[in-house]
């Protein structure tokens, strides 16, 4: 994860739940490449075709509510979404996104300062999101060190892999 994340913004409304991100009928799909064709099919149908790696999602309150389906952030990761910034998140989505290495940033008031397609600049440790077109910005409490560490590792898989390896080393077992 970089200290500064920049990208083009896609805006979404409030209460975008996981059914609107990936509908129930796609839940038996495991392949992220296949999943990403259906991401935001209900909430923002033009996204799946138009989005490119590095794009940033800016949403209103309660983003990702509803089911625990990891398909939602997985599809976003397959697209290469650079970050998701929202006025607020539902808890499981927030955890899932961070665990997959997607910066999820809760920044009160962020939705109001962006329009579709605006360029955004996020300073992770300083805790600032700026609309580069208008110069307007909102501040947010930076993520706790524990979560920044997870993002730095590239997600939970890599983090646990390192922890398990360290544990084996400590135990003197061949790895």
């Amino acid at each position, binding site marked *: 994860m970089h200290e500064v994340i920049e990208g083009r913004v896609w805006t979404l409304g409030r*209460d975008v*739940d996981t*059914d*609107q991100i990936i*509908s*129930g*009928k796609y*839940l*038996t*799909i*495991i392949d992220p490449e296949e999943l990403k064709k259906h991401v935001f099919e*209900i909430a923002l149908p033009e996204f799946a075709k138009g989005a490119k790696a590095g794009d940033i999602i800016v949403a209103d*309150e*309660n983003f990702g*509510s*509803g*089911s*625990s*389906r*990891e398909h939602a*952030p997985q599809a976003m990761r397959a697209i290469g979404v650079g970050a998701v910034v929202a006025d*607020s*998140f*539902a*808890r*499981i989505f927030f*955890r*899932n996104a961070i*665990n*997959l290495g997607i910066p999820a940033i809760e920044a009160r008031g962020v939705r109001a300062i962006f329009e579709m397609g605006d360029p955004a600049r996020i300073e992770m440790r300083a805790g600032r999101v700026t609309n580069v077109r208008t110069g307007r910005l909102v501040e947010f409490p930076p993520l*706790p060190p*524990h979560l920044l560490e997870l993002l730095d590792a590239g*997600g*939970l*898989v890599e983090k*646990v*892999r390192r*922890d*398990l*390896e360290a544990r084996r080393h400590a135990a003197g077992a061949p790895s």
Partner: protein
Amino acid sequence: MTGANGHGATLVEKILARASGLDRVVPGQIVEGQVDLAMMHEQGAQTVAPFHQMGADRVWDPDRVVIAIDHWVPASTEGAAVLHRILRKFAAETGLSHFYDVGQHGICHQILAENGWVVPGDLAVGTDSHTNMLGAMGAVATGIGPTEMAAVLALGRLWLKVPTSLEIRVRGEFGKGVTAKDLVLRVLGEIRTTGATYRSVEFSGPTVRRLSMPERFTICNMTTEMGAKTGMVAPDSATFDYLAPIAKHAMHPLAPDPDAQYERSVDVDVDGMPPMVACPYSPDNVRPLPDVVREHVKIDQAFLGSCTNARIEDLREGAALMKDQKVAPGVRFIVSPASTKIYEQCLREGIIETFTEAGAVFTNSSCSACFGGNMGILAPDEVCASSSNRNFPGRMGAKEARIYLMSPAAVVATAIRGEISDPREML
């Protein structure tokens, strides 16, 4: 017990302190908790790849892991069949023997409840957002994603931010035909879908003490719709009586301190409360049922099922109303018990016969029509009365379809009349 900051501990603080081996934890603190029970359903198939990528070779404690397939049972698509096969293979390789496969199956949360897998004081996690339901045991039970579950399987631990708590104090007597579902819908209408985000919800008060375990399951189940991390009822004799014959491991009953610090307390009096209904397209869009009845909302489908309300008590209540009645012409009525055990009880008690004779379709136990990916899918603009917990756009099929959430009794009354109806008129 009084903490360093001068007040007592809430139930979630006590349980997370126990899980993390600390004397005291405070809201906002990040702790690492030892997991007492981990549950996976089909989404668990997605834990297999990250589990291997993590370099894990064994599960921390195979006796603390339950697999219960429920969304597509028996497999209704090729994709689902593959998910089931991935899980069976993984279970065989890692020695996970508590697998409720086709024939012993049921909705994962009901499987945990009726087999005593979660007990007071536990920290339980599941790959499903309604894992909150098990908080009714006086446990912290919460949903996590499959990658996180892979870490839990490998390490037996997970990080949690200690949440603040919201107290819902309930008093009063339910009127005839008014149920725990109506109570939780009313609370949702008040505190809304974000009212408990990241928080723990504790139900208390004399009315909650009188609720049966199935009723407590219903109210804790829908704390997920409030955004809550967990929803709980402190354990009492009802909990112990329910669990005594079935508990799978030792109980550590904990109760909140009398001077526990709540972020907010909400008082609810159910005296004189009418049945409630959540209208499209959000579970917090709650109105008194009689107001909706006046609008003569015609339905295409009725669904009595889901982890919220498809236990034997719900189906008995529904069957009592259904007896000698018919499903309205033009209405499809789907009844799906929450587990195979409940299915068998229905068979013995003549409940299947009652529903079938009335023209309903009584299905095998599964999530069924609840989530729009298996059966009972709605076409655009269709209307469904449902005893489940979500009515978002697209939840049961087409995004334009309209879902009304209500109690089992109200669903049956509605199926009989063909439009949204008040069960009290039929009692």
